[in-house]
């Protein structure tokens, strides 16, 4: 251990996204001398609040915290460092063109506004979904290299203890097509479309692709951890600021604008990093929270890895499927049939599974659909600081937008905006006349601005293997990287939303000194 003294830092954390910030804050709290390096000038990665027009501020990339465990917020004392929330809980609503909107309840509570048969079916469906997700929660937290036999045994035991969930149900449900399950259960096209979009937002799979039912269980399992969707006051940038505050208060060091070009491996052990400007910074350990493929193949280099391991990282596919549109509005848009108090809810916009599937088919062909499915939020309704008095900002995640669009983004850019505004007009008739400014982030823009390969939020496609055990890549073990001293804490290691979970888990593994 005498060599540790010669390093300037105990740990270098690469990448200040939600995972990097949480990892650095966790390590700093544990008394480690931490250096956090971020390529861009802005901390937070996809958690960013920026001005799109003078006076109008919005969460430019991600616009909600999906799954940050409340426990983590308390541990890192984020409230002390300025994290505040707007109105809670945030409701999820499926908007309907005729004004009969549906509110998607949390957990297995009944849903209102449905037909009698749909109402009953929903209770059945929600119970099954919650039960199966609870059953799978342990398997979802598995890592590649964990004992698969043990985890399967545990799954069966859990099923035996949770009497109302049969293991047979899981083997039927999880590999199925989500669309087929919803078609079997429900009549309402709006309900089916909304449930599917809620489960698949951000992913490149269509509702009728095998295994998409597991994506629903994954989302459900995340929400069961007590982590409801929330929006911090000041946008997601406020969470980044609070995390930075937590790091700095514990003596951690943060350096923006520093791009890591290489992870130095000395004698088979990670020994620090080399920056793009040629500076060498030594540390006893390195924790990378950027995507696993880039970390291992570009920063470490295939030459330092075994052939099979390098191959398993090459096989991680990145496939972005969303665009982000942020608009400044000169007033609150009218939404027919919606109580004004609910204007700050999370809106899901898709009339039915058919539209969702067609959008995905267009996406597969590299095209844009005329009525894109969207997740829409008006953050300024509950947070007056974001826009001038009486004015608003709207944040739109457009689902099924290809990275490599046919004909190139120069021509498709305008078409995307038109499609989105025209579709929104069906729900908010006056939206077009209220737009005063806007910002469009296509998947290539998201890739460039937030260092997300292909614009993929999840650092790689969330297929079944990755959702269950083989994360971040097959042949991997634990949070280590097979290179002693190098840990992986990016979204590839534990996927899904703004959660910080992967970063925290990697930091904890590092503190315990295990892989």
């Amino acid at each position, binding site marked *: 251990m005498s060599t540790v003294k010669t390093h300037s830092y105990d740990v270098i954390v690469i990448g200040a996204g939600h995972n990097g910030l949480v990892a650095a804050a966790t390590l700093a709290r544990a008394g480690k001398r931490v250096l956090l390096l971020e390529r861009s000038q802005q901390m937070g990665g996809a958690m960013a609040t920026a001005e799109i027009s003078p006076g109008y501020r919005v969460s430019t990339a991600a616009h909600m915290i999906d799954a940050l465990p409340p426990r983590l917020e308390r541990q890192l004392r984020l409230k002390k460092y300025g994290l505040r929330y707007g109105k809670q809980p945030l409701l999820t609503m499926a908007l309907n063109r005729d004004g009969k909107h549906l509110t998607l309840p949390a957990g297995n509570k009944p849903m209102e506004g449905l037909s009698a048969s749909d109402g009953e079916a929903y209770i059945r469906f929600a119970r099954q979904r919650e039960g199966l997700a609870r059953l799978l929660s342990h398997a979802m937290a598995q890592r590649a290299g964990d004992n698969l036999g043990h985890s399967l045994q545990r799954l069966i035991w859990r099923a035996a203890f949770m009497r109302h969930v049969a293991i047979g149900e899981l083997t039927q449900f999880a590999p199925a097509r989500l669309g087929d399950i919803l078609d079997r259960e429900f009549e309402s096209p709006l309900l089916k479309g909304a449930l599917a979009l809620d489960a698949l937002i951000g992913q490149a799979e269509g509702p009728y692709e095998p295994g998409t039912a597991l994506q629903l269980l994954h989302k459900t399992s995340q929400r069961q951890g007590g982590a409801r969707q929330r929006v911090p006051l000041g946008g997601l940038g406020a969470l980044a600021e609070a995390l930075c505050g937590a790091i700095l208060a514990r003596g951690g060091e943060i350096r923006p604008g520093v791009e890591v070009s290489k992870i130095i491996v000395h004698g*088979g052990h990670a020994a620090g990093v080399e920056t793009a400007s040629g500076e060498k910074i030594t540390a006893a350990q390195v924790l990378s929270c950027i995507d696993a493929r880039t970390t291992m*193949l570009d920063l470490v*280099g*295939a*030459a*330092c*890895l*075994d*052939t*099979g*391991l*390098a*191959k398993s990282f*090459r096989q991680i596919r990145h496939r972005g499927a969303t665009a982000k549109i942020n608009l400044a509005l000169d007033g609150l848009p009218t939404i027919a049939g919606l109580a004004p108090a609910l204007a700050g809810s999370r809106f899901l916009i898709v009339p039915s599974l058919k539209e969702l599937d067609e959008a995905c088919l267009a996406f597969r062909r590299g095209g844009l659909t005329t009525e894109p499915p969207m997740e829409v939020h008006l953050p300024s309704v509950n947070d007056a600081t974001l826009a001038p008095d009486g004015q608003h900002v709207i944040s739109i995640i457009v689902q099924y937008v290809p990275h490599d669009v046919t004909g190139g983004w120069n021509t498709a850019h305008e078409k995307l905006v038109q499609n989105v505004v025209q579709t929104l007009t069906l729900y908010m008739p006056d939206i077009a006349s209220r737009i005063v400014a806007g910002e469009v982030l296509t998947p290539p823009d998201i890739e460039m601005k937030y260092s997300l390969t292909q614009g993929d939020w999840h650092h790689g496609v969330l297929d079944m293997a990755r959702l269950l055990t083989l994360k971040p890549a097959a*042949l991997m073990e634990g949070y280590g990287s*097979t290179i002693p001293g190098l840990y992986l804490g990016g979204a590839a290691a534990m996927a899904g939303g703004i959660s910080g979970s992967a970063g925290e888990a990697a930091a904890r593994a590092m503190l315990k000194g295990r892989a």
Partner: protein
Amino acid sequence: MSEPVFARHVLMSPLHADVAAESRTNLWTQWNGYSVAALLSDRESEYQALRYAAALVDLSPTCIYAVTGAQALGFLQRLVTGDVSKLAPGARMPVFFCDDRGLLVGAGRLACRGDNDYHLSTDEPALAWLLDSAYGFDVRVEDMTQQQARIGVWGARAEALLALVTSDDLTGLQPDHAASCKLAGMPVSLVRNGADHLAPGYVLTCDLDDASAIWRRLRDQREVPGLQAIGWDVLNTARLEMGIARAGVDYQNIFSAIHRADALTPFEAGVGAHVDFTKTHFTGRAALLPLKDKTPARKIIRLQVNGQEPLTLSDVRQGDAVIGRVTSSAYSPAHGAHLALARVSMTAGKTPDSLSVEAEFRRNSVVSRAWRAASLPGDATIAINYL
């Protein structure tokens, strides 16, 4: 190569017509998808040719990969377990390569032809693994197998035979070193066999167009008594006399193995001396390091079972416990005994003794089984080699 690898049916060696012309038995076998002669005339005369005169073998099915490019050396250092950096141009060395778990993917010989210019020859195809390993390196891997012909000129009089057909002086050529010469005006590169080879002699590599002419030129040297083309039956006997294990027979490469016990680490294969932990990273290093000083869990051993009659050998027993199984065996005229290689588990932690082998033999029309005492002839280390 015009054919996709997985679309191969039966491949023909460029020397197939010449070898077929020698055949008086029409007995063939296959190697890497090629038809190769099992027996051309009779065992006795072919064995005599290989051991005491000169024998010609068509080695064209040997897999040859050209490795070139600015990072060829770095690529090879990461690929194989041994240290390649000291290999001088013109020399070659045995190399072994493993997967991430330290289990053998392949074995072969690496010839250095110049700066960042290597030829890797292997007994079994390895292109897919080489290409997987090439990711991240500035290196070009080319399958040369079907672009050249190879002829083994082996036996006690191989040197004398070559002296008759080429005016180049080959007497000073060191074992495991390469030279080039002209044979009836045709360019030929040749490598001299090392001591770990199944017979002294040379492997000649030539253009496809010249192969047939060179084969006939060698075959026509009537001044060398006993010169003969030979088939695989006799090569099998010869490799068992040398204790050379074959991939696909005595062990399986990790991609062919259906059970862990069929695959081997270099330590289990007895080639631990070719694993160098002091060089830069290589695939399987982390898995092999903890095994360095441990007794291997299994091993390939050489066995000798006395007796002249035909025997089929199977289980290997130490005392009363069955510890393994014979993987290949043949009768050796030189030893006057049956020689075998067997894969055994090493529970005792040392080289097993008091061994017996279950032998099947015929008495009139009755097939009987009996345990026959087996001895370990000479050193029991195994050289894993291509031919």
